[in-house]
């Protein structure tokens, strides 16, 4: 358990590419932080810098009270779970889990005890003498977790650990990892490109884009008050509807109709509304021409257009709506306003 401080950390590769612009944030003790963003956004680079696998160009990294910029990965008191598990193929599960301890000259009986504890926790007892190639993907993932747990580290790092699993197993492992982290209450940093994983697992989400931190916040904050149009469109499936509108006379105008209150701004504006905040309503302010209905069982997604803009509406399974014209209203207080040019949120 440790507090992690990242201060103005920056990464520039030898070829001059700046993978991470100076970024700062703090991670509290026992907190589960998820770094999320599209591929190439710098999230893995940041994680690998925390792990010590990538050099830090500028800035300061503290784990606990120690500045670890120049500390070897093995001495940073961290454990890492890799995307492709990175198990040693020639070692049994037991040896895989014990290898890190053996290298730190832990006494054999203590190793044996720790391995047993970890195996109990992860239901790996029956597989301790197997080789990784004889295990399923989920089991391998557990072994990788076991290898991390026995180290009893101050910080867990996860690098897209679930992306090699099939969808069903991923849901299950997601819960297992989260439960395990709760139980051990080890500070964790988790990298993923899957916004569902980020939403469900995180205490706090850090949304990244193009080497920059776009927003830091709880899942609910990130979802309901995205800091930029990027966050709005990246988080949530389907993403937030972003519609070009115009603010004038204290109102937001979509075409000729005023659809919401504007908070003091005038001129062109981007209006963001979550699909579930558009409610079919005969006197609704917005007229949508629905052309596709996606049937998802528990609910339906209506895809249509307003003027030239594509819009998605999320309705419950009991709302019988087909294609054609649809009037929708906006749930009060559920809109986000963004600057059209910069994409930043207007408070």
């Amino acid at each position, binding site marked *: 358990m440790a507090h992690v401080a990242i201060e103005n950390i920056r990464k520039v590769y030898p070829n001059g590419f700046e993978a991470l612009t100076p970024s700062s944030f703090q991670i509290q003790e026992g907190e589960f932080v998820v770094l999320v963003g599209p591929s190439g956004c710098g999230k893995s680079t940041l994680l690998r810098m925390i*792990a*010590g*696998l990538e050099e830090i160009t500028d800035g300061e990294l503290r784990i606990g009270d120690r500045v670890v910029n120049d500390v*070897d*990965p*093995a*001495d940073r008191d*961290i*454990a*890492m779970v*890799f*995307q*492709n*598990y*990175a*198990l*040693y*193929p*020639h070692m049994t599960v037991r040896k895989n889990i014990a*290898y*890190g301890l053996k*290298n*730190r000259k832990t006494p054999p009986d203590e190793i044996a005890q720790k391995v047993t504890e970890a195996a109990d926790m992860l239901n790996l007892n029956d597989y301790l003498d197997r080789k990784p*190639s004889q295990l399923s993907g989920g089991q391998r993932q557990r072994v990788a977790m076991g*290898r991390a747990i026995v180290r009893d580290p101050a910080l867990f790092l996860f690098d897209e650990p679930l992306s090699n699993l099939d969808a069903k197993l991923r849901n299950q492992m997601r819960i297992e990892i989260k439960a395990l982290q709760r139980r051990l209450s080890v500070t964790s940093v988790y990298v993923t490109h899957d916004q569902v994983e980020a939403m469900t697992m995180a205490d706090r989400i850090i949304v990244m884009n193009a080497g920059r931190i776009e927003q830091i916040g709880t899942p609910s904050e990130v979802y309901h008050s995205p800091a930029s149009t990027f966050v709005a469109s990246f988080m949530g499936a389907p993403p937030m509807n972003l519609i070009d509108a115009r603010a004038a006379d204290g109102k937001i105008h979509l075409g000729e109709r005023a659809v919401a209150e504007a908070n003091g701004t005038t001129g062109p504006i981007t209006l963001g509304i979550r699909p579930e905040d558009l409610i079919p309503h005969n006197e609704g302010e917005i007229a949508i021409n629905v052309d596709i209905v996606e049937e998802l069982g528990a609910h339906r997604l209506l895809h249509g257009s307003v003027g030239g803009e594509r819009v998605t509406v999320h309705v419950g399974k009991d709302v019988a709506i087909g294609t054609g014209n649809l009037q929708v209203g906006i749930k009060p207080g559920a809109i986000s306003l963004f600057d059209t040019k910069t994409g930043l949120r207007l408070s």
Partner: protein
Amino acid sequence: MTDATQIQTAVAAPKRKRRPIKLENVVDHGVLVVGALFMLLPILMVLQLTTVPDAEIIKNGPSLKIGDQFDENFQKAMFEADGFSGANTGVRMLYNSFILGIGFAVGKIVIGMMAAYAIVYFRLRFATLAFWIIFTTLLLPLEVRILPSYEVVQSLGMLNTFSGLIIPLVASATATFFFRQFFRSVPEELVEAARIDGAGPVKFFFDILVPLSRTMIAAMFIIMFVFGWNQYLWPTMITTEEDMFTLVRGIKQMTQVLEGASLPEFGRSNLLAIIAIVPPVFIVIFFQSWFVKGLTESDK
């Protein structure tokens, strides 16, 4: 439908009908048999020559007759020497050949692995250049540089020693190349996981890389052992004392005595030729599966 009935009859009557002989099978096997004979006949011929007296070989050449000299030839070949010192018995030469083959193979593997490890895993300046320089030495086989090599070995006083026999040959572009390709295919995450697990470069090499390369090492060992065993030119130059002769080099010495009144000992040298074939053949047979595995797949 036919499948179903076949299964039924098979179940009902365990005595399977013999499969009809297909023409293509006959042709396939014909080709294989002819090929096998083509490869085997010279060896069988040599074997025949080891059973008849030397005088008869001079008179008649190879024949179909199987004589009674095999035991005697075997005795002579293995335990008698033909030189002045009496040191170059078959057993001694066999021993020397084994030392050369094993030393050559092990040396090449060790050097090749270490070179490849340095090139692949350490951020050296000019690592790629170094690799290509090593690689171009494939264009400079021993035969091209034999005079300078001899001069060096000679001036270091390593003539007629095992180290002189082996060391100048162990630097190997082939082994370095194969191990480099193999190491590059080892996932990057494995290195990183090992780093986080506290394994330094030496530990990583011995704990992770060497065990992973098992099949590769076995494959290289077979190739290099046979290659070393069959070295002829280098041992001929380096070894002048008879107790250092290797088999391949010693056999040649035996047939060179067609001067004066003595007959060359064909029976004996032919038998030694056969004996010289046996160890490489056995190594290949026993390690065959490893060999294929090493060159085609890996258990990463």
